[in-house]
């Protein structure tokens, strides 16, 4: 560790410029505002933050938010890679429409998305009534929250993996096939490892986005404490009571958990990249 310098020297130009822009923007847009939040938390005191968070209802909400966000991101990881593969590799009628549709969750304001999803999946909605016939309640249950989180996170994996698939050269696959690998073997051992960094990035973004999502979820969640109450709603509730301290405390708790998860994913990613890179 000690032998590794802070910055490896290289002749590549633009270090100062890129570092300058990156750090300045990062400071103004992210670090200062989040610093303000942490400062608020520091004034409130660690013990008070713990007291605020360490309550059955808050735990339940945090657990619910992170669990469903994780499951939704997992679903998006699988479905997103599949979708990216289909969009890049196959040609079929309607492909471009499908491609364009992937970004819709970004474009639709979250509240509109929530209203539209609820209208569809409520017991009297077009799809909800079908599900209701087999006794499957979607809206106003945790399924509804899962659905909304899948929706908001859907584009991430596809959009990060898509450019990478486009860059993969057929020669790699041909080489693999020439050497006797089955198609499955090629995909499993050649293509998927190439997609891993991008797919993990997409997974991390999808997860992070889902954890904090508020606008689309509240319409479909039901918001019953301990059952379908998400953590961001608790923050809004505290704000309604003019309780900036408690709102900040829950916000900080979410921030710390999310940050740790993202850091872990990014470390795994750098690790896998290194491993593959040195093969």
């Amino acid at each position, binding site marked *: 560790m000690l032998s590794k310098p802070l910055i490896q020297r290289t002749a590549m130009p633009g270090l100062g*410029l890129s570092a300058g822009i990156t750090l300045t923007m990062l400071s103004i847009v992210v670090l200062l505002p989040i610093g303000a939040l942490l400062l608020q938390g520091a004034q409130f005191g660690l013990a008070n933050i713990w007291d605020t968070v360490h309550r059955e209802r808050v735990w339940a909400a945090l657990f619910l938010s992170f669990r469903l966000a994780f499951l939704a991101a997992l679903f998006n990881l699988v479905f997103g890679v599949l979708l990216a593969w289909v969009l890049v590799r196959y040609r079929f009628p309607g492909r471009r429409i499908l491609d364009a549709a992937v970004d819709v969750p970004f474009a639709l304001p979250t509240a509109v998305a929530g209203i539209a999803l609820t209208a569809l999946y409520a017991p009297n909605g077009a799809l909800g009534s079908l599900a209701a016939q087999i006794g499957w309640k979607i809206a106003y249950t945790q399924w509804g929250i899962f659905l909304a989180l899948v929706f908001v996170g859907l584009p991430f994996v596809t959009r990060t993996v898509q450019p990478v698939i486009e860059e993969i050269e057929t020669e790699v696959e041909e080489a693999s096939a020439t050497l006797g690998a089955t198609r499955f073997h090629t995909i499993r051992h050649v293509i998927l490892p190439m997609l891993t960094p991008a797919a993990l990035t997409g997974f991390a973004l999808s997860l992070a986005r889902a954890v904090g999502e508020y606008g689309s979820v509240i319409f479909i969640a*039901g918001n019953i404490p301990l059952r379908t109450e998400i953590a961001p709603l608790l923050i809004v509730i505290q704000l309604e009571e003019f309780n900036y301290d408690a709102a900040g405390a829950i916000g900080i708790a979410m921030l710390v958990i999310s940050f740790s998860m993202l850091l872990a994913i990014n470390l795994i990613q750098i690790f896998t990249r290194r491993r593959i890179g040195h093969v």
Partner: protein
Amino acid sequence: MQKTINLGRTAPARGKLRHQSQQRRDALAPARTAGFAPATGPASWLSGTALPALALALMALAGTHAPVQAQELLNVSYDPTRELYREVNAAFAQKWIADGHEEPQIETSHGGSGSQARSVIDGLNAQVVTLALASDIDKIAESGKLPEDWQSKLPHNSSPYTSTIVFLVREGNPKGLTDWGDLLNDGVEVITPNPKTSGGARWNYLAAWAWAEKNGQDPRQFVGDLYRHVPVLDTGARGATTTFAQRGIGDVLLAWENEAYLALEEIGEDQFDIVVPSVSVLAEPPVALVEANIANDDQRALATAYLDFLYSPEGQALAYKHFYRAWDDSAADPEDVARFPQLDLVGIDHFGGWKKAQPEHFGDGGIFDQIYTNKDTASN
């Protein structure tokens, strides 16, 4: 092919090409080099404008928001008053011009009562606030933007109009719900927003509480049981109305009287009926002038006249028209006045005022929170 296999491969020639002094200078002074760029070539926009652009854009745009002019007025209000103030603003502007003034520019902002109050505290430049709960304006007063005794400045506790809580049921009232007690019948589902996020929902809760008290029931038990019949807690009154009316969830919606009439008008009179319970609350949405945001005497005159207009026969008639129970029906359409049935109304004073009721019932760990945590231990 080779390129793709060697993911993230490091430079083969690293070390041979380094320019130490150059490198160190760059590493040590990123901020300096950020603003400075070898501004040649078509891509110089990147360095030349990126950061100054942020600063300049923010500055330039901030500059466009000049200090408020005399004839501008911002009314920060809560959700269900949109239709009312749209008409009030138009009617008041006409009157103001007729009185020989310039045309005023009146803007309104709507949202949850609590978050609107918070915006004013955080610097939203409202000259007039018209919110759902006196406790929200009290919070603004605590920040020093208006005097502590604001509620005594205008008649009727500074509430130009009032409302109450009623039941909206499905056409023909299939479950036969006539009063609060019926809501606990087996299989009845009640839709109400979350009292923690919606001002109106606090009145729903308090109305149920008051009925239980007057009918010899333990109010705490009654309200707790009532919320066990609630399948969906929306965050706002409009969300709850949608859940009930358009998603078909629940048998009864607890709603502001003005919202219930509006829902009938907008969504369909043939789908719902209004049921008026024997006991309900007298909700007094107050209005106030925000002293700290008054720029000059002209603006003060405009803001004062605006609030006074709400109490004038014309303003009161508009309140009646929008299904509020106002005070002065001299100019109102008799039909608008006649639709309100008489019922036993309980004011917030009965609960010791908002300063006491708010923390006791709706505060962190208050009675409402206990409903859910107790329920959990009970069901285990």
